[in-house]
Structure formats: structure tokens, C-alpha cells
């Protein structure tokens, strides 16, 4: 009887060992797969790299406008202080767009999900906060809230406000979506595809918002050039 009982103890002991072995094996390998899944790289299409080069051309045009303005030579009807303020704001925006880290991240040929997250953070701090919200947003205010009371500026103000609002709200959700990549249960083809799509879509969202920002700055610089003429 005791012998039988002890044989049962042995069987139960081995059963528990086997279950723990299985659980541990499962956990270890699912983690290997998940590690591989989230380190999947997004290879950028050639068209998106070419599109990035157009940003440099736009930036050169803006820089030309900003540097050509000389307040001492301006004899037009507009307030010099206002023009100088707008010019200096555009200068700050150009500096934000020329940020080394941001450009390094944008020019990468292959991007992991972490790169997209870092790009989003840099874009948020440098372009959205450093340029759109603090420098350009006020140009779009009208009525009592307007910072500058100018007829010409009031004409393009709704356009600036609309774009600035859209850029501000564009990639708020991107960082929230990206945070989900650390949560997992079963690694499958489906989850792998989800992670890849998350990387691709988030990058597309951030880059399109980036293009929108440079276009807004370009439009303002063109308006500014039209106002100041050759001064």
C-alpha cells in the first residue's frame, strides 16, 4: 500500500515538473518570437525618400525669404515691428526644422518601432511645440484674440489656424498606439502583422504631419515675401 502511494507521489511529482517545464518553455519561446516581432524593420519606399528631398528645397526657399528681409530698407505701410516679429518667428521655425536629431531620424532608410516613437517625440517637441504652437499659432488668431492687427494677415489667419489645429491634433494618438507594442499574449502572424502595420502607419502619420508643417511655413513665408516685396 505504502509502495503504491509512493509511486503515485512520484507520478504527481513528475507531472508537476512536466507542467512547469512546458510553461517555462512556452514563456521563453513566446518571448523570443515577440522580441523578433517587435524588432521588425520598416524599409522606406524610394518615393518617401524623394519626398524628403523636396522638404530641403522648401526649406531653402523659406530661408531665402527670411534672410532677404531687411527692416531698415522697408518703406511700406506695414508696421516694422510686426514684420520683424513674424520674420524672427519664421527664423526660429527654420531652426526647428534643421534640428540634427530630427533630420537624422527622418533620413533613416530602415526604421524600427522605437525609431518611429523617437521621431514622433522629436517632431512633437521641435516642430509642433517649438514652431507651430509657440510661433505660428498666434498668427492665425483673429478678432479680440489677435496678436497682430493687420488686414492682410487677417486674410490668411483662418488658413493658418485651421492647419495649426490639425497639426496639433494629428499625432497625439500615435504615441498612445505605439505604447501597446510591449503588451502581448500569444505571438502569431496576426500580432506580427499588427506590430508591423503599427510601425508603418505611425511613421506615415508623423511624416505626413511633418510635410503639412513645412507647407504651412512655406505658405506663410510666401505671404510674407508678397507683403514686404523686395525689402
Amino acid at each position: 500500500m505504502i509502495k503504491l502511494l509512493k509511486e503515485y507521489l512520484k507520478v504527481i511529482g513528475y507531472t508537476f515538473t512536466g507542467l512547469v517545464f512546458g510553461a517555462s518553455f512556452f514563456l521563453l519561446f513566446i518571448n523570443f518570437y515577440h522580441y523578433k516581432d517587435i524588432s521588425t524593420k520598416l524599409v522606406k519606399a524610394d518615393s518617401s525618400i524623394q519626398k524628403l528631398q523636396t522638404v530641403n528645397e522648401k526649406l531653402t526657399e523659406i530661408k531665402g525669404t527670411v534672410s532677404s528681409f531687411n527692416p531698415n530698407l522697408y518703406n511700406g505701410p506695414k508696421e516694422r515691428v510686426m514684420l520683424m516679429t513674424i520674420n524672427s518667428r519664421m527664423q526660429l521655425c527654420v531652426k526647428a526644422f534643421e534640428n540634427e536629431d530630427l533630420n537624422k531620424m527622418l533620413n533613416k532608410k530602415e526604421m524600427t518601432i522605437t525609431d518611429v516613437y523617437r521621431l514622433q517625440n522629436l517632431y512633437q517637441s521641435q516642430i509642433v511645440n517649438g514652431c507651430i504652437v509657440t510661433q505660428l499659432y498666434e498668427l492665425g488668431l483673429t478678432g479680440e484674440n489677435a496678436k497682430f492687427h493687420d488686414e492682410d494677415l487677417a486674410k490668411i489667419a483662418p488658413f493658418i489656424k485651421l492647419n495649426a489645429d490639425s497639426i496639433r491634433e494629428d499625432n497625439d494618438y500615435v504615441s498612445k498606439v505605439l505604447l501597446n507594442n510591449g503588451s502581448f499574449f500569444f505571438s502569431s502572424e496576426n500580432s506580427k502583422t499588427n506590430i508591423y502595420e503599427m510601425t508603418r502607419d505611425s511613421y506615415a502619420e508623423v511624416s505626413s504631419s511633418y510635410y503639412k508643417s513645412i507647407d504651412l511655413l512655406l505658405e506663410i513665408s510666401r505671404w510674407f515675401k508678397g507683403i514686404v516685396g523686395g525689402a
Partner: protein
Amino acid sequence: MVKILNGMFYFLKFVLLLAAFGTSLYVLIAMYQRLEKDMINLIYVFIPYIVILVLFIINMFFRQTGVTKNVFYNITCCLVFFTIAFLALRSVFDVNMIYRWKNTYHINFNFYSDVLTFINVMIYGLCIANVFLMFSESSFKLNKKKENNKGSTLKKEKPVAVQLDDEETL
């Protein structure tokens, strides 16, 4: 060969237990600091480690061959402790998990707390298996003694059979 393998895994399981304990301690201390929790509460998290260590010491001092010479059990222990160390290291070093960047410690606490339950279940599973194998081991000794006794009686009977054969042949 099996003896050498067993000896290797037996030694390795202590090394890996130390590694698993160390890495988990590092992550959990950072986690408790971040949450501003009382460090004394860490003891509750490490109860399974203490229990398994006590069981290993009992196995070692009482020379319980059912556990110490059990290759499968030793391999499982190694695998479990390696997994625990791997999970802790992954929460620290896997740069592709975005939550890692959300705090100043650069440790993915979210991921580690997700797998903490699995870790506890695995260690308690090892403890239960250890206890069962520990008690089943003593039966082997009894069986061996009985087998030896039976063996001795058979040896005594053998000459009788030979004698009978001899008688038949006669």
C-alpha cells in the same frame, strides 16, 4: 554520461537561481522606488525564491537522491531560472518595447509585472514537484532493501533447483 549531465545541471541550477534572483531584485527594487512603495514589502514577492532555496538546501543536506539525481527535475529548474533571468533582462534591455522609454529608469515595468504571475506559478510548481519527489525517493530505498532480501532468498533457492535438475537427470 547521465551522471555527468546531472552533475552539470545540478550545479547550474544554483548559479541560475542566483542570476534569476539578482536580476529580479534589480527590476523590483527599481519598480518599488518608482512607485514609492515600502521596500520591506519586497519580501512577499521573494517568498517563492526563499521556499525553493530552503527545499534545495534540504535536498542537499539530506541527500535526497529522488530530487538531486533527477535529471529531468534539474533541467526544468535550469530552464525556469533561465527564463526568469531572461524576462528580467528583457524588461531592461529590449529597446524596442516602447514602455521602456516612458520612465527615467528605462525598465519596462509593465512587461515585468505582466510576467510576474507566471514566474511565481513556475517557482511554486517546482516547490510542489520537489516535495512530491522528495517523499517518493524514500520508497526507492525500501524497495531496494526488499529486492535485496528477495534476491538473497532466490540465491538460496537456486542450488535447490539445481539439485532438482540433478535429481531429474539422475
